[in-house]
């Protein structure tokens, strides 16, 4: 018992130190060659008002980067320079391909590029000229989001074990993993909403990642609602296990089906991260994992203590 707690505390300290290191790293190291790739995926289809959605999409991607140096790659070639303006094209929609006009100040003067609906448009943003504070949250938001999926998987795994064995320890483990999922989901939501405001100018958008994540949050909340509304201990454990398995199956389906809505959420491209960013990111990720593990161990220790008290009580009763 004691050694388990010691281990948990050690993990907590390591995790905290790593996370703190990553935090400092984002400002003093990874910040310097601030470089990122934002790519616009091929447009998703929509049977209704395609033009309106595409305008919004294009604006979210490129319109927010006015004042930055960009590299716009289209079919006709590559243009590098400072983005001066990004306007929806007049009269776009009725069969017209171009939905947006991006004006870029290049060395040889201003150039206006037609951003077309069916093209894959990549806007590479580098040498921001000013620090992109919004981007800092990436080092926390992404690791936390990844861990939330990992602990969710752990919870589902213990739920399967519980249904097979009916041993209460697996129910406890599954529940604690679910509590962790709840914590990380809440943190991901909080950091995500802050970033959405900074990058997209709105607090919330019904966008695939956000929507999926919102559904996942509801599933985790539902898990605890279910737990709290069942009286019998074993029945509660069985129901909770069954539901967490269903939720775990549902989450990826939700994730993929949301492709039916066009997306503006950035995706990290392979090789898109420069070493300083990558290393900082990995350190933050490992740090968070340690913190997660530590919380898990501490909660388990607490549950084991509760069990001992219960056992002592029953023995005293005779």
């Amino acid at each position, binding site marked *: 018992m004691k050694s388990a707690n010691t281990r948990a505390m050690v993990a907590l300290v390591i995790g905290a130190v790593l996370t703190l290191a990553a935090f400092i790293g984002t400002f003093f190291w990874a910040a310097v060659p601030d470089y990122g790739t934002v790519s616009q995926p091929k447009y998703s*289809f*929509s*049977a*209704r008002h395609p033009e309106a959605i595409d305008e919004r999409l294009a604006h979210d991607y490129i319109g927010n980067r006015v004042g930055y140096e960009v590299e716009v790659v289209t079919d006709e070639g590559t243009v590098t320079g400072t983005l001066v303006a990004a306007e929806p094209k007049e009269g776009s929609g009725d069969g017209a391909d171009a939905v947006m006009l991006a004006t870029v100040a290049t060395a040889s003067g201003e150039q206006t590029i037609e951003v077309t609906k069916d093209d894959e448009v990549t806007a590479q943003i580098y040498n921001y000229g000013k620090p992109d504070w919004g981007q800092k949250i990436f080092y926390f938001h992404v690791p936390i989001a990844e861990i939330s999926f990992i602990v969710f998987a752990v919870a589902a795994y213990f739920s399967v074990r519980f*249904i097979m064995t009916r041993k209460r320890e697996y129910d406890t483990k599954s529940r604690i993993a679910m509590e962790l999922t709840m914590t990380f989901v809440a943190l991901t939501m909080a950091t995500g909403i802050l970033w959405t405001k900074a990058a997209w100018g709105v607090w919330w958008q019904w966008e695939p990642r956000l929507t999926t994540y919102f*559904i996942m949050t*509801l*599933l985790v*909340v*539902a898990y605890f*609602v*279910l737990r709290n*509304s*069942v*009286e*019998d201990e*074993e*029945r509660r454990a*069985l*129901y909770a*296990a*069954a*539901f967490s*398995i*269903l*939720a775990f*199956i*549902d989450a990826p*389906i*939700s994730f993929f*089906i*949301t492709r*039916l*809505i066009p997306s503006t959420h950035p995706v990290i491209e392979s090789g898109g991260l420069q070493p300083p960013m990558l290393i900082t990111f990995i350190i933050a990720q490992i740090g968070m994992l340690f913190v997660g593990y530590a919380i898990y161990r501490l909660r388990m220790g607490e549950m084991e203590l509760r069990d001992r008290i219960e056992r002592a009580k029953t023995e005293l009763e005779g």
Partner: protein
Amino acid sequence: MASASGRQFRAILRKDIVMELRTKEMLMSMGLYALLTMVVYFVALSQAGSEFDPRTIAAGLLWLAFIFTSLLGLNRSLVHEKDQGCLEALLLSPVDRPVIFFAKVVGNLTFLLIVEALTIPVFAFLFLQGHALESGAFSLVPLVMVAGSIGISGIGTLLATMSVNTSGKDFVLAMLFIPLVYPLLLGAVTATNAAIVGGPDAMMVFWQGMAWVAGYDVVMLLASYGLYEFIVGA
């Protein structure tokens, strides 16, 4: 054994239908609830102006009505099993648990489809008149309706079996059910919308939505079938 299971399956289904025809509990409450939803829709759209074409949101409104009426019905369907401990008697008989599950799913599906089949014309009568359905794909809507309802009654039967044993049955069922059917709902609304509104890509979108719904049905029915035995015996 297979024929014994078939006999039990038919017996449970027949019993549920006889009881429903006698009490009309599910059909009446679901049907009237759907009608009430239409009134709320009218109020919600009352300020939209004459420019607004209700067809653009018809798919969403229809599925909204379906999802809430089905919640109501699913809740009812398990309550009478619990009433006098009948479920216990059912479990005591030499019946394989999946037989109970599939009989219940088919029963719920039947009642759901009846109510939905009545809701669609009422909805079209109240909201879609005067807006010519020139796309001509409206006849595909029942297809989405059936595919969507299979998933709803599959997962719903399992969840209702749980929620009937909880305090605050209705709320717990809604809380478990709505996030879980989100993928199905999105696929169904996409397909229904493509069928109602039409457009150049409509058929492609329609079948893509249908594929999602069908995939969800298969996955969730299998999962529910696998988990039902543990849930119903608890």
